[in-house]
């Protein structure tokens, strides 16, 4: 049976299109209005409201919770003090990424971890003799993401506690008299927050946020607008840009943090004394330089793009619809170098962009590659340049 989120009563009234995606078997609006691009612009120019509730959530608590997560997560959880959050990943013992997620540190011994897919069995088997409990609390929390340049002022009008909240900060506060948690996190690469609300109070909080945002260009945004923003922001998506190492059939479908562009998570590995799962393999990979590729951004050469379409007698399409599919990347001699996993035309960057896996010697920003795309029923090879992620990175995101 298909489920709905705690915000559904409001989101369903707002969804003019009747289009829904299934996200973890919950209804999630594809777009609310005839234009997902306008919703995307709400995120980049005002604020978008996105219902993130279907994310899997685990409460990890107990005297050994920190030790447990220290041994499981790639990033050092000890650096994440109460009142903070961390974007992190967990790996298998061969150093391949199982999944990524955000961990909120609610207290010294209490954490909330998000994941795209079920992970309870995986985590529980790793507890061993540690004094820690793991509980799935997915349905207990509704999550409302408020993303965009107006997000701070908008929430600031509802609670003063967010004004000074730093990037990846976490605070307990009240919105519309409801006790909530607010984290400065999101999946858009913009200034943004996520409000964690006990499910029963979801509508009260939605109404308070909705009321405070009227007349300011704030819109509910659907999955398509979110995907647009996340590609520009270089934020990876499970089963699109990578696969869980647990369920991959071959290593070709597995990826290490470095390969996934998450090498920054390992920056202090030498100073980190933890024995987390995958550490040895990761250290070996770094030492021996055995990473097979690195996920980076691609920016398609606009002249080449227009030229190829013109030559085919077509008007060069500039379609913002995110494409979650594989497209191959070549060198000048048309030897395959790697592949793109997500692509779109970026209205903010005014270019066709992609997230792509390219070999390390081609991963330096500015490296030239060719992206294969079909034009008029045949493959053509478009000049593209490797670029650092995030491709769109406004100062307000972290300021």
């Amino acid at each position: 049976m298909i489920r709905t989120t705690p915000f559904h009563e409001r989101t369903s009234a707002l969804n003019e299109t009747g289009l829904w995606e299934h996200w973890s078997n919950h209804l999630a609006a594809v777009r609310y209005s005839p234009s997902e691009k306008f919703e995307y612009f709400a995120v980049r120019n005002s604020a978008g409201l996105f219902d993130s509730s279907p994310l899997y959530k685990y409460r990890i608590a107990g005297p050994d919770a920190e030790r447990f997560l220290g041994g499981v997560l790639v990033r050092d959880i000890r650096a994440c003090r109460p009142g903070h959050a961390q974007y992190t990943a967990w790996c298998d013992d061969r150093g391949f990424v199982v999944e990524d997620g955000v961990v909120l540190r609610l207290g010294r011994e209490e954490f909330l971890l998000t994941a795209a897919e079920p992970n309870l069995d995986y985590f529980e088997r790793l507890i061993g003799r540690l004094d820690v409990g793991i509980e799935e609390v997915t349905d207990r929390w509704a999550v409302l993401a408020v993303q965009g340049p107006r997000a701070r002022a908008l929430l600031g009008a509802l609670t003063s506690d967010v004004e000074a909240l730093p990037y990846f900060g976490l605070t307990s506060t009240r919105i519309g008299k409801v006790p909530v948690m607010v984290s400065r996190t999101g999946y858009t690469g913009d200034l943004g927050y996520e409000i964690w609300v006990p499910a029963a109070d979801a509508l009260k909080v939605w109404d308070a946020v909705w009321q405070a945002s009227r007349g300011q260009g704030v819109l509910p945004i659907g999955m398509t607008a979110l995907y647009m923003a996340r590609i520009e922001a270089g934020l990876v998506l499970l089963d699109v840009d990578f696969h869980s190492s647990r369920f991959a059939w071959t290593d070709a479908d597995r990826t290490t943090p470095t390969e996934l562009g998450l090498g920054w998570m390992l920056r202090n590995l030498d100073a980190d004394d933890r024995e987390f799962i995958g550490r040895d393999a990761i250290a070996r990979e770094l030492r021996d330089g055995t990473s097979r590729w690195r996920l980076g951004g691609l920016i398609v050469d606009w002249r080449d793009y227009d030229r190829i379409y013109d030559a085919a007698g077509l008007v060069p399409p500039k379609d913002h619809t995110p494409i979650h599919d594989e497209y191959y990347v070549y060198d000048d001699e048309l030897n395959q170098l790697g592949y793109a996993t997500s692509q779109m035309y970026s209205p903010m960057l005014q270019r066709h962009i992609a997230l792509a896996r390219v070999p390390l010697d081609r991963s330096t920003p500015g490296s030239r590659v060719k992206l294969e795309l079909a034009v008029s029923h045949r493959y053509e090879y478009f000049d593209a340049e490797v670029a650092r992620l995030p491709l769109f990175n406004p100062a307000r995101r972290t300021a």
Partner: protein
Amino acid sequence: MPKTTAKAPAKPAKAPAKPARQARSAKATTKADRTYDAIVIGGGHNGLTNAAYLAKAGKKVLVLERRHIVGGAAITEELRPGFWFTTFSYALSLLRPDIIHELELTKHGFMPILMPSTFCPMEDGNYLLLTQDHGENLKEIARHSPRDADAYEAFNHDVGKVCQAIKPLLDMVPPDIFSDDPEELIALAALGSRFKKLEKKVLHDAVRLLTGSAADFLDDYFESDVLKGYMASSSIIGTKVGPYSQGSGLVLLYHLLGEHDGEFGAWAFHKRGNGGFTQVLARAAESFGVEIRLESPVENVITSNGRATGVALADGTEFLAPVVVSALDPRRTFLELVEPRELPTDLVDTIERFRFQGTSAKVNFALDGYPEYPALPGRTDQYRGFTNIGPSMEYLERAFDDGKYGWYSKRPYLDCAIQSAVDPDMAPPGKAVLSSFVQYAPYHLRESDWDTEKENLGDTVQAVLESFFPGFGDLVLQREVRTPLDIERTVGLSEGNIFAGEFLAPQMFFFRPAPGWSQYRTPIDGYYQCGSGTHPGGCVMGAPGKLAAGQILKDLRKN
């Protein structure tokens, strides 16, 4: 020897967020300080574009702007606290995409926001509302005429083909048909061969549009008055023609050639309006090293032995450069900045006959809230694009009838945009700004003048809005009327023509602004033109500025 002292920084340390921020440069004291590779007169979008391209090629460039703000007619002003008005130019479509890329505008805040709807109220209270949902649009059109739904598809297909064929002309220097230079002959032959390759229907459609009336073309496809009224509105903008006039097809085609993210005929609203856009352009120009001096009105171009050597400001200050570029309109470029005596008589004659006859005005409103359309109670999403008050071709033509005989329309055509619905930074929360382009408002009024009629025009426009949106007047917090005379006085566009010269066939392409002078040069060596009075013409397109820079750099390489 002249010494360089206290050289003005080419680029401000930090670009402030608010517009009108180009600093008045430190006083130029020595001749070296006042010497440049090129001086651009006029900091409108074409002047800035031209300067940016020249600077990008390594030239030391000075832009001299008469006003306290760059942008020319593309400015946004906070006329009431929290309310931002696009005083004149109000949307973006024809801007050449290559300029966005080559001048790296996205690094400086370029942000063309989609306008996702078009709303066409009707006099009987009905409406046509087009959105980004193509299937819904066909149903909405079918509500007015079932035949027009697929005719709409056919129209878009046919016109798209014409746009594809014509578009390259916007990005090329017109060949000089009066020259025997082999390079020009080759260019002309290439142009001919391009058209020869077109399908018969596409070429015929192109000629019909370029020479005929919008009404004839639209009547071939549609029967719905409101759809035709909406379509035909693009055939009269800024031009003294009605939809039934021969020549309106050209204006229609011109506007259909605009694009937003690759979609022909689509418009965008730049963050903070077109003034926001010209601020981005100024930042880009400065990043290439362009120096911008505000409040520096140029009195004349200095010439010596038939070539330009610099410019003199109204206060007597002189700046020197072997290249001087006028971004002003042809009348000012040829008849005011230089002496007509220095020019061939036939050129002076042509420019004197060049048609300006501005026919558009703006009335901008600060509103206490969003107007309500009775048939769409409680809704405001229809205001996220243009609101087109031109419900039939007859309505437009009757508005033209008044204009034809030297008076402003009793029921004018209005191209409205409630810009705060697209960019909330244009007005305080819950409030609105409405930009209303008004036509017809001829520059030359019969038996009156614009200083007398200005507020009467404002009342006329407000009355029309009241008739479609009952209660509109109660929302008005402030009204700003900008007549063609205001456009001329404020921006400097002769007779208030928004395109720096009419879009009439004898004033286009080979002949813009004058036969033999369509390649951005002038008879005075080192003196160039880059304004909208040159090919391909007006609108916030930037092509004249870019193409002129290409010619200047080519000439500099030759010399």
